[in-house]
């Protein structure tokens, strides 16, 4: 167990170094990165001053070490448009993004597993057919378009769900205001429904298909037949014997799923004006605010690596067969 944890930690460190190298290289690929930090009307003297201030006149290895040193301290430089440390804006937006990501993750598991199980138990029926069709469709719909369509239908036509807005849950939790956090919770979830489904729909579809095919595989195996022949109720056979084995492929996917969901969250936030990192990045893109984009990308990458690590450790604890 300990060797697994240590190997997994070393792996995470290597990935983090990889991320910083890529971020750094991306900057250098633009030619002279100084031009990303000055306005188009800047004079030669101003450009030179910025270059020296940011250290772009130093040799590359030294620049990288400086970059790494600043990064460890969470220093990505000042945002070009907000005139304050980029990391502050990112940290303010992070809780909202986490709420959306975790909620989508929750949906991707809790909705997908029953769908997959029901489809596998009614194989070849109309129920199975419609779940599979939905699964195929769900993997072909862009999340942001689904969001727009949901806004038009549930928000503007039926007027039953809010088309934008956000009630914080994690933020008060961090500030230690538990009472406010939990009185907020129902509202938080209410505002999460549409963006959450828009982000999660792809994953729900894929996981439902995954659960279905692995259920079909497991249901045909000897231990399920044995369980049935012992006269255990069908319910217990399905839930205790079959599902417990069938959902393992989904659990293995959870780590990678986060990366996928984060990608969807970034775009869907735009549609619902969700005050998270995605919206921040979008505004930063339009203003070519490089420090904010960098801070956001690296922060999300770290969050993803951390979540992935946690999932893997928990998984190793649950399933004794896992060895790395």
């Amino acid at each position: 167990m300990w060797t697994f944890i240590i190997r997994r930690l070393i792996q995470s460190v290597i990935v983090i170094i990889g991320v910083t190298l890529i971020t750094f290289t991306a900057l250098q690929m633009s030619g002279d990165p100084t031009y990303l930090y000055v306005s188009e009307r800047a004079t030669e003297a101003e450009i030179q001053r910025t270059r020296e201030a940011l250290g772009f006149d130093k040799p590359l290895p030294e620049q990288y070490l400086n970059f790494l040193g600043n990064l460890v301290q969470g220093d990505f430089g000042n945002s070009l448009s907000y005139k304050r440390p980029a990391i502050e804006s990112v940290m303010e937006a992070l809780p909202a993004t986490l709420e959306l990501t975790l909620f989508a993750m929750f949906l991707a598991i809790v909705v997908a597993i029953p769908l997959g199980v029901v489809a596998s138990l009614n194989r070849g029926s109309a129920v199975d057919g419609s779940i599979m069709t939905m699964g195929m469709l769900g993997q072909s719909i862009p999340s942001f378009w689904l969001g727009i369509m949901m806004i038009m239908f549930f928000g503007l036509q039926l007027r039953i769900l809010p088309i934008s807005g956000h009630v914080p849950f994690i933020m008060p939790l961090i500030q230690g205001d538990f009472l406010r956090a939990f009185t907020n919770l129902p509202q938080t979830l209410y505002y999460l429904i549409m963006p959450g489904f828009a982000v999660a729909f792809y994953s729900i579809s894929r996981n439902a298909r995954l659960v279905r095919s692995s259920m079909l595989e497991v249901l045909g195996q000897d231990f399920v037949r044995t369980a049935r022949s012992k006269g255990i109720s069908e319910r217990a056979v399905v839930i205790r014997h079959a599902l417990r084995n069938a959902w393992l492929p989904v659990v293995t996917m959870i780590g990678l799923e986060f990366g996928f969901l984060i990608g969807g969250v970034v775009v869907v936030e735009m549609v619902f004006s969700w005050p998270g990192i995605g919206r921040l990045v979008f505004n930063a893109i339009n203003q070519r605010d490089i420090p904010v984009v960098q801070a956001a990308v690296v922060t999300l990458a770290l969050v993803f690596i951390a979540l992935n690590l946690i999932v893997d450790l928990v998984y190793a604890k649950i399933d004794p067969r896992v060895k790395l």
Partner: protein
Amino acid sequence: MTVETTQAPQIVSRPLSHRRREFRRAVRSMVQAKWPLLAALILFCVALAALFGPWISPLDPNRQDIMVRLADPLSEGRRNAFFLLGTDGLGRDVFSRLLYGARISLTVGICAIMVGGTIGVIAGLLAGYFGGWIDDIIMRLGDIQLAFPFILLAIMFLVILGPGVVNIIIVLGVGQWVTYARIVRAQTLSLREKEYVEAARALGDPTPLIIFRTILPNIIAPLTVIASFNVASVILSEASLSFLGLGVPPDVPTWGAMLADSRDQLMANKWWLAFFPGMAIVLTVLSFNILGDWLRDFLDPRLKTMG
């Protein structure tokens, strides 16, 4: 001598007729399954739009006409202009823009998998054939890339490099190589020990020839399945990036950018602005996914019982 000359044509013609038979079998299976046939038809239409967009589109996709802003679908404009799918906030014809958008989606989708496929196939062949440290380096690099939400990397590179079709193809292409590398590596590992590869080696064929002439042709089939699913996911990614304003320059119509523009009119309930470009994406992506599914079943019927 005479024996050799009579035998030679047989050897050459056998794979050809075999291929033709396979092709007929494929077409028959496609017609039987119905959905793949429909998917192929849709993709054929999308390809037509992409190839001949400028000739078949009724209007210039960038022509703005302030007099016919937000015209309803099926409405008429001045000078016999007919707006099949309505016009957008700047009075541009939605149908014409859709036709032009097909071009970017297909180009990016196909070129990106060619970039990613080429890198991935070569990396996978090298890793699988040589093993050892080459294998280690290539596969660990792949692990690192997969341990990172790819769309974030794409965003960062495109913000810095600036928008453009070539940039987006490279960024999305590089994002795909690991999938190909893993499959090619696994296949190469098992083929490496096969008798006919052994024979080629014994005959003294140079290594590149063995890799590309003897091994590669035998692993093409599973790659087509991956490629089909991959085009679908690349088209989705391209739409996301265009939606964020990171795709191609603003004067080139794309489906993702059309959806981004439609957000301004969201409250005004101009549904056609968002509906049609989205449907174009869904139908195209769905068709590639259906074809991928069918291709997988067709190439490996054992899997059919599962899925």
